[in-house]
């Protein structure tokens, strides 16, 4: 099988923002200079109406990233064929420049659990996730970017390191990876790891997109720092420093500002995106030809 360039991302290497319907009028009127917009696929799986009208308009003006939150790739159960068909429909209709999902599960026999739940990393789960990713890519006819999770617990049965797990899935399926730098910080603090070492070990050549968001902070039962992936604030300074470090190593990669709770006016998201853009421009200027792992 010929080697596929796994880092091939067609999103521009710039900062983008998560799109929220309440920002639609603002975006259409002010036409902000932003690299791309990202939407949660499930919000656009209705039959018609404003959601599709907005997406048609926005995808004509901006590069589009379709980000799924409901496929449950990390579940033991088979993927939902109806949901796969809906994804295929959206992808065919809007031709997004990127399509991504999570290394997590959310659907069980009792229904949809509406959270990105963690899975143990074992040879069994690795085989299953690879099968699922393969199935998604076959069904949608395009490459998937798989996102590293933020987690609060560890599984005793895990026998494979998270980075090795993601790398192996990518190796087996040809999928790309989405590196959520906020998730790296959240998981690293929660599990006593060095976030910079995590990034340094990550297969950056496979990364097609980076996510940035704000976390919340609390303590666990033993009084240790526990970070929560909250998506309800500006990107924290330590995450931004880690982002700078990441871009310094991998060069300019499309970077999303995620903000899903207590969503502020678009100007705040735009401001965050410009901050990220400055880092990307700096990396491009300093290492114009570099794209090293």
């Amino acid at each position, binding site marked *: 099988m010929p080697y596929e360039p796994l880092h091939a991302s067609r999103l521009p290497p710039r900062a983008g923002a998560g799109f929220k319907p309440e920002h639609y009028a603002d975006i259409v009127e002010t036409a902000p200079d932003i690299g791309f917009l990202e939407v949660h696929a499930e919000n656009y799986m*209705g039959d018609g109406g404003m959601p599709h009208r907005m997406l048609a308009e926005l995808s004509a003006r901006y590069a589009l990233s379709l980000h799924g939150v409901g496929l449950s790739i990390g579940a*033991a159960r088979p993927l939902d064929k109806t949901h796969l068909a809906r994804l295929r429909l959206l992808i065919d209709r809007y031709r997004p420049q990127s399509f991504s999902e999570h290394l997590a599960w959310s659907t069980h*026999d009792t229904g949809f659990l509406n959270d990105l739940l963690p899975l143990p990393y074992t040879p*069994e789960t690795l085989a*299953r996730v690879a099968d699922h990713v393969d199935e998604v890519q076959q069904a949608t006819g395009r490459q998937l970017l798989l996102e590293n999770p933020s987690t609060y*617990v560890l599984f005793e049965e895990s026998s494979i390191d998270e980075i090795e797990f993601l790398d192996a899935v990518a190796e087996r399926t040809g999928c790309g990876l989405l590196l959520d730098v906020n998730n790296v910080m959240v998981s690293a603090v929660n599990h*006593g790891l060095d976030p910079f070492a995590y990034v340094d070990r990550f297969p950056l050549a496979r990364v097609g997109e980076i996510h940035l968001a704000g976390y919340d902070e609390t303590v666990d*039962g033993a009084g240790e720092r526990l970070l929560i992936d909250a998506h309800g604030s500006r990107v924290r300074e330590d995450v931004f420093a880690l982002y700078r470090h990441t871009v310094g190593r991998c060069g300019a990669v499309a970077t999303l500002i995620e903000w899903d709770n207590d969503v502020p006016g678009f100007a705040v998201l735009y401001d965050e995106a410009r901050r990220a853009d400055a880092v990307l421009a700096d990396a491009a200027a300093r290492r114009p030809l570099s794209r090293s792992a």
Partner: protein
Amino acid sequence: MGHAATEAAFAAAILDPALPPPAGLTTARGAPDEKRFAVYRNNVAVGLRKALATRFRVVERLVGEEFFALMARAYIAGARPASPLLFAYGDDFADFIETFAPAASVPYLADVARIEAAVTRAYHAADAAPLAIAQLAALPPERLAETRLAPHPAAAMVRSRFPVGSIWQAHQSETVAPVSAAGGEAVLVARPGFEVGIHILPTRDAGFAAALFAGEMLGDAAAQALPADPDFDFGGALVGLTGLGAFSVMTRMDGGGEDDGDD
């Protein structure tokens, strides 16, 4: 533990807060931590409650945040989302409210929920050209009475013994205006273009509209409406409902009896 068993235990503990966290979880320090597992439990519970509160804003305003949270929790326990399409979650919330004894003192609550559920359905419904008056006017008069109109995919009616349209409307602004309406109301939710409209129908048109939505022919629907209200005006009612976007465009201009070969 195999993958499926690990997940089943995890899901069970999320759904039942009385259960301890599943076995096999740990932390970097080598000991399980209940507070960490609680983050997942909380995410699931709060996420679904927020989804309901976003969709049923007026219901929440009517009963207050605390009571709403209680009611939502009871609903969620018995009705997990069937699919990842969260905008469809709560389609049957009104039916649940009707059976939720603590809410019995707010008898119009379920019908308000029906309006709010219909609004979200209308927002996501299929696009379709609405019926134009000109299309009806072009029908030979003798065919008009035999015509059945197809409800627009975004249109829905809520008939209530209570003035639920007025109640809903009064709760759209920051300060709630006193509701002076009394008696029942019929509310039409429609979206002929891209904006969802919520309309209180004239009382005399409610039965006629309901009959048309149930698939009756125009003549039969009018015959039912007239004895109920001598003020009923067939033309006015039909023009009114059509203008609000209640019906889809007729696909065959010859119209009439819809499907002659149906029976």
